[in-house]
């Protein structure tokens, strides 16, 4: 089910909300209701998906129980390997078979395996839980709490990726099922901001993005820039909009999710960008990949290698394709260069630093979105054909260019949704602002579209 759908906003969410607080005196029943609701939310499009997520939860909980009794590293490794095998089968089998077949000219039949929704998210969350269980951090958790933690519908499909110590204390709090006025007000505020970002901004930009990336050989310099910039903003408003909605919905149930975006396009270098973009994934990779690999403690060369490994994994996590791997590689190289730059004590003027970072991010997103490396090169080469640039060419696309300029100003100078939510008050201007966002967003619901991060 999509957050940006009538059925979710006007049926599913109100029903779950009412039941959740109506069952205040029956905690276990409320938990079971919430779990069933979350699974219904997950499998709304395709009930077959339930087998994968329930199977994954059952297997992982088995490992959790084993690790609680026998916290042996080998068991943890087996648990992680099983998770990676499941993820590998569903997400990467086609990619690897295709690649091997192409490399060695084997002509193998590439399996067509359906990718279960959000498998990357719930797999990573469970791997983290296994590691934390091995570290002895999860002893008191019950089965119901574990399932609730994994399938909690506001963040099940596309994150933020949460850790157990952020969630369990919240739903063990005695005030968990007591209506909290401030949480509901803040939740509604950020939910409608997110809905507006998704339905009005991201989905409008999708028109130019899809058009540009499906005609990469026909792009002129202006089209090339429009395509790349439109995708840069589409991805941000789409994914951060989703996360805003997730945070807002969770707040309606008194759960505070970690923030996932902190105005990333204001970053002055690529390291900063990754501290502000998809922050919970970055945190996961730091905790569970970078640090176990040795982090920055094993010498400079090893640090750089670790950074590259983390970003290549990040690329592969986002999608089974060489474009994603290359995108990860680019960010890895940029992060290494950034680190070297800092270590050498070099400095750069802020506007130049921002411009370089933003330009790099825009160009790298082209690989992230393109269907093939060839398409990505087509878009990037179109962006460099400045000899074509004429006033007439620019004027022809004046509306979208103006729109992109406004969005650029917004992402650089405007307060982000978390800041707006935290500055919560009940003034008329604020309520009228939220109501206008809600009304305009609901108007756009007829053009239902998926979130980009559902694919990952």
């Amino acid at each position, binding site marked *: 089910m999509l957050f940006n759908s009538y059925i979710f906003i006007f049926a599913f969410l109100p029903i779950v909300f009412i039941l959740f607080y109506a069952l205040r005196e029956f905690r276990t029943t409320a938990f079971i209701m919430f779990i069933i609701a979350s699974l219904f939310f997950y499998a709304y499009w395709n009930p077959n998906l339930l087998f994968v997520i329930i199977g994954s939860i059952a297997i992982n909980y088995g490992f959790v129980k084993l690790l609680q009794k026998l916290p042996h590293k080998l068991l943890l490794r087996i648990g992680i390997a099983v998770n990676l095998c499941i993820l590998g089968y569903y997400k990467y089998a086609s990619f690897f078979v295709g690649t091997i077949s192409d490399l060695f000219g084997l002509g193998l039949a590439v399996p067509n395996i359906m990718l279960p929704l959000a498998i990357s998210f719930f797999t990573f969350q469970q791997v983290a839980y296994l590691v934390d269980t091995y570290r002895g951090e999860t002893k008191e958790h019950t089965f119901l709490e574990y399932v609730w933690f994994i399938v909690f519908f506001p963040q099940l499909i596309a994150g933020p990726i949460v850790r157990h110590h952020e969630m369990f204390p919240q739903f063990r709090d005695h005030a968990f099922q007591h209506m909290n006025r401030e949480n509901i007000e803040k939740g509604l505020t950020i939910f409608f901001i997110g809905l507006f970002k998704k339905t009005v901004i991201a989905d409008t930009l999708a028109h130019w993005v899809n058009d540009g990336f499906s005609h990469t050989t026909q792009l002129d310099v202006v089209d090339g820039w429009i395509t790349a910039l439109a995708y840069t903003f589409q991805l941000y408003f789409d994914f951060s909009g989703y996360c805003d909605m997730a945070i807002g919905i969770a707040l309606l149930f008194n759960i505070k999710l970690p923030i996932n975006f902190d105005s990333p396009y204001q970053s002055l270098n690529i390291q900063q960008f990754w501290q502000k973009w998809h922050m919970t994934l970055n945190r996961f990779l730091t905790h569970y990949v970078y640090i176990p690999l040795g982090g920055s403690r094993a010498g400079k060369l090893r640090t750089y290698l670790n950074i590259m490994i983390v970003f290549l994994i990040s690329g592969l996590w986002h999608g089974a394709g060489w474009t994603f791997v290359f995108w990860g590689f680019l960010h890895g190289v940029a992060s290494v260069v950034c680190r070297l730059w800092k270590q050498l004590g070099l400095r750069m003027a802020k506007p130049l630093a921002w411009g370089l970072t933003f330009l790099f991010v825009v160009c790298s997103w082209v690989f992230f979105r393109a269907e093939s490396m060839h398409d990505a090169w087509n878009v990037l080469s179109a962006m460099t054909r400045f000899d074509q640039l004429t006033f007439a060419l620019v004027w022809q696309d004046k509306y979208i260019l103006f729109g992109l300029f406004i969005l650029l100003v917004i992402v650089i100078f405007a307060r982000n949704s978390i800041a707006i939510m935290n500055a919560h008050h009940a003034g*008329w201007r604020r309520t*009228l602002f939220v109501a206008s966002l809600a*009304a305009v967003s609901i108007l756009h619901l007829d053009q239902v579209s998926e979130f980009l991060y559902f694919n990952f």
Partner: protein
Amino acid sequence: MSKFLKRLLISLIIVISMIMTFTYIVDPLYFYRLPTWYQAQYTTNARYQLPGLIKNVPYDTLIVGTSMSRNFVESDMDAIWNVQSYNAAIPSATAREMKLAFELGARTHPDLRNVLWELNFYSFARAPEDVEDEQEEFPYYLWDDVWWNDFRYLFNLYPLKRARETFFANIRHDHRNRDIEMLYKFGSDSPTLTVNQVKELINIPSSVTRSAYQFEIMLANFRENVLPVVRDHPDVQFYFFYPPYGVFWHVRAHKQNPDYLDGITRLKSAIYEELEPYANAHLYDLQDRMDITHDISKYIDVAHYVPDINRWILEVIHEEMPLSSLAEATAKAEAVREQVLTYSLD
């Protein structure tokens, strides 16, 4: 309820009411009235535009059908039949959509006298309740008689977009799509087919000609979407006709589906039997007219005939007698089968 939530609710009601009031006053799809205070520009999205026109255009004769009927020019029909007509044909219409069009017309025009109804096998080959909604949601709320779901129209982005486009069309003096009669007409300047094109097209699979065309489904569809309408409106004269597809269209369908000919031949006899008890039903089979169906120069693509054929159909139905016996209906259906099986382009 907290002050914030109260104010949010009031603000939401104000904003939504303002949007709905704007849509009601401007009425960009002319759902409540034809515009008098600005120049209308109609959308070519028939499923959204036609309900308003079917409701508000004055007529006593309605045309329902698919794109094969779109080129019936109302003024031609008015002159030949001495009626006041409106063409409510919908491209790729299913039988259910035709029924919805008729029912909307009948509800809003108590003086409706005649209906010219195209019986297209394509429209009957799907489940009886099917509408065309692959590209976008079918706007039932515009076609039904439920008043409260009008909010789907009043609080909807599409009419607002239409209002914006009409506004800009007016300030830019864009005169396209302003004439209701010529709104959906097409093909008058299209080149006609050549033998080579037909030879090629005849072998290209098409989702239309690949349809199942199962006799039972088509008959069930007819019984659910057409027959009750005839029965419930004894004061309305129904003129049903099978559109004169080029013979090569049937040939292609037959090539892709060996049951096609059998299905349509049986259906024609069955439809005659179903309609026979109703004095207000008149059935015409134009598919055996070889002077039309075998003349490639009368078609602009593998399905559609040139607009002149629509005028010819109006004349034929006005001047000739409908099918008068099961034997005649069956004989005409068999004749089409024979023509298809013996057709050669050489």
